[in-house]
């Protein structure tokens, strides 16, 4: 009985992890189309981490780093070839006007901070 219970819980947890991190598409915390979006870099995450915009729409992402850990030092948009240093407690603007719809990830240098810009 206990064997079954433990194994079931284990498998359930594995499923939960897969669903939570890879399958679930977050909607609630995404910021809708706006011209200027402030993104806080704090406690290991970008807030908000999901941003939506439209093709050919000019958008400015204002990063404000509040996390002193060196991990948070740089924000990289790998597919857009953009990379900016984020000095502590200062705002750094990245202006974008993306021509192609798609999902553009932004991360810290180590890929631990993760955010996504969805262009529709």
């Amino acid at each position, binding site marked *: 009985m206990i*064997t079954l219970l*433990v*194994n079931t819980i*284990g*498998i359930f*947890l*594995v499923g939960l*992890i*897969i669903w*939570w*991190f*890879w399958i*679930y598409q*977050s909607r609630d*915390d995404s910021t809708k189309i706006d011209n200027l979006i402030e993104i806080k870099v*704090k*406690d*290991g*995450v*970008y*807030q908000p*981490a999901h941003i939506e915009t439209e093709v050919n729409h000019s958008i400015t992402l204002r990063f404000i780093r509040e996390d*002193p*850990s*060196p*991990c948070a030092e*740089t924000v*990289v948009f*790998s597919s857009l*070839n953009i*990379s*900016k*240093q984020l*000095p*502590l*407690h*200062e705002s750094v603007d990245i202006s974008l006007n993306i021509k192609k719809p798609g999902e553009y*990830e932004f*991360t*810290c*240098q*180590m*890929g*631990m*901070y*993760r955010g996504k810009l969805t262009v529709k």
Partner: protein
Amino acid sequence: MKKNNYTFVLTGVRCASCVAKIESTLQKISGVLDAKMNFLDHTVTVSADDKLSANIFIKALEQLGYGATLIDGIEQNEAKKKSLEQQYYNNLIAKTFVAAIVGVPLFIIGVIDVMPSLQTEQGYWINLVFGLATLGVLIYSGGHFFVGGWKALKAHNANMDTLIAIGTGIAWLYSMVAILFTHLLPDMAQHVYFEAAAIIIALVNLGAVLELRARRHTSEAIQRLMKLQPKTARVIRNNGEIDIPIESLQIGELIRVRPGEQIPIDGVLTEGSSNVDESMLTGEPLANEKKIGDKVIGGTLNKNGSFIFQTSHVGKETVLAQIIQLVQQAQNSKPALARLADQISAYFVPSVLIIAIVTALIWFNVGIEPKIAYMLVTSMAVLVIACPCALGLAVPISVTVGIGKAAEYGVLIRHADALQQAGQLTTIVLDKTGTITLGRPEVTGVYPVHDQDRNRMLILAASLEVGSEHPLAEAIVTAAKKDGLALLNTTNFHAITGQGVGGTIDGQQIWLGNRYLMEQQRIELGGLKQQADQLAASGQTPIFVAAEKEIIGILSIADPIKPDSKIAIQRLQKMGLKVIMMTGDHQMTAHAIANQVGISDVMAEVLPKDKAEKISELQKKSEKVGMVGDGINDAPALAQAEVGFAIGTGTDVAIESAGITLMRGSLQGVADAIVISQQTIRNMKQNLFGALIYNVMGIPIAAGILFPFTGLLLNPMIAGAAMALSSVTVVTNANRLRFFKPTGINS
């Protein structure tokens, strides 16, 4: 009202009594909230309405007779950054210390096995106290892992914090269960793991401290460049000279530079002359002679002379500012190699969580007793040994150090991809003019026919060419001027494309040009034909001079080869690269130059528009081509090549078509760039390989894969130490690149 703080450094403050005057003057300006002077370091800090600009204060201070310099943004930022960093660093040390103070005694008590059993009342209370102390450690020293992990979790994200928080969190929870509900656990599993939780927190914090220390060196190169920027310049205004801050300089102002001073900004020398040490920007060890009309670069060092120059670029347009910007951008770029790590990192942490659960299940199903304790120990070790940071850091940290190192030698790498590709080149194509040669044609010989006067011949040639724009014309005019010859008036000047020029001087029809021109004009060359062939065969361009229908002599013009071109080419060949020369020159001249520098592969008579095509032909033969050229005429070829090297004039930084810009003119820079690239790539691979192998091997060992064979289980504390060390190792390995010195630099 929003307020702004400005800090100025003052000059000319001699007595403490000035302080009151300065403060009261500034305070009287409307909008100023406060002005405080520090007499010791001669600074004044003004707190004012943000609508007031710094210039208002500078003017007010200047009217009082003081020089004022705003401590600029970069410097202030650097200072602020340093103090914040220091604060963070101290904080981490305190956290490490607290965790160690609790963890180490607990660990020792565990090892000497003096703890009473949990089933006794004494054991219960002692362990409860230890549990609370560890909770304190988790909150104070490890709180940031829990907050970060939780926030990441909410954002459907997982990071390093997640792993540490879960690893230490379950260790603490299990231990508390063991204390509070001892009877629920089998006898052998009645054990607490507080020491593991506290020591893991201490080690991870210690790792962060060490990493931070190591990281300070990674951006050394850029900091050194930033420090090159002088703060003030001595401007000549209304016949007087005043020191003003760099920020308030305008284009076109006259600046005086005295011996031993740093040149404050870019400009053109207008009076005086000197030798200037530009090694800090170009890597060129010898000082450059500067005379009137020469460009000077801000941040370089004036050696012996005194001179005045006119500013040509200010602010972000200066060479130094552009170099800093370019290096910073490049340091932040990622080569293709990094994308592998990026892809892995997105799946890494959740995968480790899954592995930890699967590990626990395996121990539960097939493990030995006490199963529950083994489940805990192994899954905790899996969680804390995994180090996604080392993996993610592996490539970017090498790129930062490598590109910074290259910049120190005057090699500006535009993007990490160029860095990666430069190390993999198989063929180097060199443009001739300005790349192998100096790009400044000179008259190398004046050969009049026997009865003609040498000077008269040079005067005629130069007088004719004075109105021409051809590069060879400039060489002839310069040669005549150098000999102090006075030029004559030319009438009826006309140029015949591809042949030469003609005109009337002193009533005589003079012709100057190549053999075709002479043939066209039916002028007999006689024995000069052979002499001309000899000159061409030695890499010089023969130019005939004729008066009326009679030949009067030949001028030979050559573009001298740079002094170290031959050595640099040999170095490239020794590195196993195929070196090809490409030029628009005539076959004979081209081969002559190629022979002198030891190149056997020559592409001559290539029109500028065909250069890119030639590169593409080489690429079709699976060659990885690096093209070295001047960045303007060769732009299409530079862009076509895998890596374009723009050979610098020392002032052009932003050469878009080139992946790599060489600040000094020497071809040694190409070899240096390739060597630095190879070293950086090797370093990156070591890092990436190390981090991958570490995780690939570390995780199964932590899970207990060796246990059935050797009985070995990894203590979670050792796993934590390994994790903390792995990122430090990556940063330290990248830092080794700082000591790297390309061999050609000294030669």
